[in-house]
């Protein structure tokens, strides 16, 4: 996780806030495939709060790790030494991820657009990029093979763009029906959790729509941080502030990582 310090009046960082909000949504999840960063932090926090039996799988082939620290990399010793088993990278992708066995994928995003497509490849032209990002990693197959996906990101107009420069990872493509036309049966992104609220695909159009506001945020704040005219659900729910206990647990996991 980034080391961003708490700013302003809130006693938590935006990263801590989104991690806590994402973790709460895992209460009924059985098996999750998580990326490293906010996704892994949220999944591990959930195992220590609302989902003690959450079974985790990471692309390093670690099956069922029970880490007591937040990992710095996908092959972190805290994952490797607490896993039920470690399988090879070809095996984790071919046997465990691809056949749609895994209930939920949890992914971060460099850029995400109004249909939940994710870019982690290039900003600008592919052949002459203005900014070269790390690339695909496991994300494209996590989003196509997990039965549903939760995306987590910090909310800013730089991240939330009308149309991604490059579709690294297919969300809802051009809108409703796109995934089905490609032969996919999985749901794709069912929620994008940010430090300002939660966006969910509209059931008719698949366009990301604001459905929940976090404690203290307003619709104007979220719209101001979104690069398109964001649709807002008729009824909004409200995400309570992180509790002292959630924050203490998260910070304990982070401190333990050194």
């Amino acid at each position, binding site marked *: 996780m980034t080391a961003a310090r708490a700013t302003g009046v809130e006693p938590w960082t935006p990263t801590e806030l989104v991690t806590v909000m994402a973790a709460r949504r895992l209460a009924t999840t059985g098996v999750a495939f998580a990326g490293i960063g906010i996704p892994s932090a949220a999944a591990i926090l959930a195992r220590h709060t609302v989902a003690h039996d959450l079974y985790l799988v990471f692309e390093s082939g670690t099956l069922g790790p029970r880490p007591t620290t937040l*990992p710095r990399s996908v092959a*972190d010793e805290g994952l490797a030494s607490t896993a039920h088993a*470690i399988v090879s990278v*070809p095996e984790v992708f071919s046997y465990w*991820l691809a056949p749609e066995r895994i209930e939920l994928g949890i992914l971060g995003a460099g850029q995400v657009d109004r249909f939940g497509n994710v870019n982690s490849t290039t900003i600008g032209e592919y052949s002459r990029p203005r900014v070269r990002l790390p690339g695909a990693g496991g994300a494209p197959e996590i989003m196509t093979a997990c039965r549903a996906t939760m995306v987590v990101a910090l909310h800013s107009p730089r991240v939330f763009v009308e149309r991604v420069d490059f579709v690294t990872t297919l969300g809802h493509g051009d809108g409703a029906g796109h995934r089905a036309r490609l032969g996919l049966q999985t749901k794709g992104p069912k929620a994008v959790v940010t430090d300002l609220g939660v966006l969910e695909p509209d059931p008719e159009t698949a366009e990301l729509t604001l459905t929940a506001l976090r404690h203290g945020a307003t619709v104007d704040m979220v719209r101001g941080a979104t690069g398109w005219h964001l649709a807002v659900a008729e009824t909004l729910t409200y995400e309570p502030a992180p509790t002292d206990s959630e924050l203490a647990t998260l910070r304990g996991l982070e401190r333990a990582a050194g």
Partner: protein
Amino acid sequence: MNQPTDSLLEEAVASLVHDGDTVALEGFSHLVPFEAARAIIRQGRRELTLVRMVPDLLTDQLIGEGCLARLLFSWAGNPGVGSLHRFRDAVENDWPVPLEIEEHTHAGLAARYQAGAAGLPFMPVHAYVGTDLTPHVSHVGLVDDPFTGRSTPVVAPIRPDVAIIHAQRADRAGNVQLWGVQGVQREAVLASRRSLVTVEEIVDELPSQPGAVMLPAWTVTRVLPVPGGTWPSYAQGFNHRDEEFYGGWDRISRDRATFQAWMSEHGLGSAS
């Protein structure tokens, strides 16, 4: 008296890695073969094609010293820290030399190694659906499934000239044992024409290590003891990842001059 390890490693790398070769350096953020990569840099190899799923700091150093003409990869970052600045500088600005890239998803590149190890003409994959990558990536195609008629993505095998990995242990005959996060090392060695395995220790008798990956001596060209050869990465059971170095690399690598000064100071600069 045995030859010192350092000169044995230099000699092995010199005999196995030549200018223009396709070299797989594998280790999925664990058992990363850093010392062998440093030997490649010290020897000033040029025009290499590097195959490495998770390029990491090792690749940043090879790129910044101009050793690579081409990189096949699936995720190029500094794990847990951020960007690989030398990689970005090469792709964005052609510095110090242009770098051609072929990028895959993890599932796709892993399957290219599997096809290479298995001697298959291609490998069907559950991969690349709906991504913008495919128009830019060679070695990914579509075939009609002869059983259902459905169009199915496939990848071509990869057969590197040489694979280099680091493992925990080998015996005197050269049988190799590695455990923990095993990545794609077995596939990389079996797919390659030649291979070099550096190990933490060489023992008379390999102890039983349930769950370990085994590479029999007859599948490996050369095995050498290079204890600590995976620093700043780690070898489970022997040492820990040097988190401070991974964090500090961000500052060292961000600026060309700082990078070059650091490489020279550590005997890795092209000028040294």
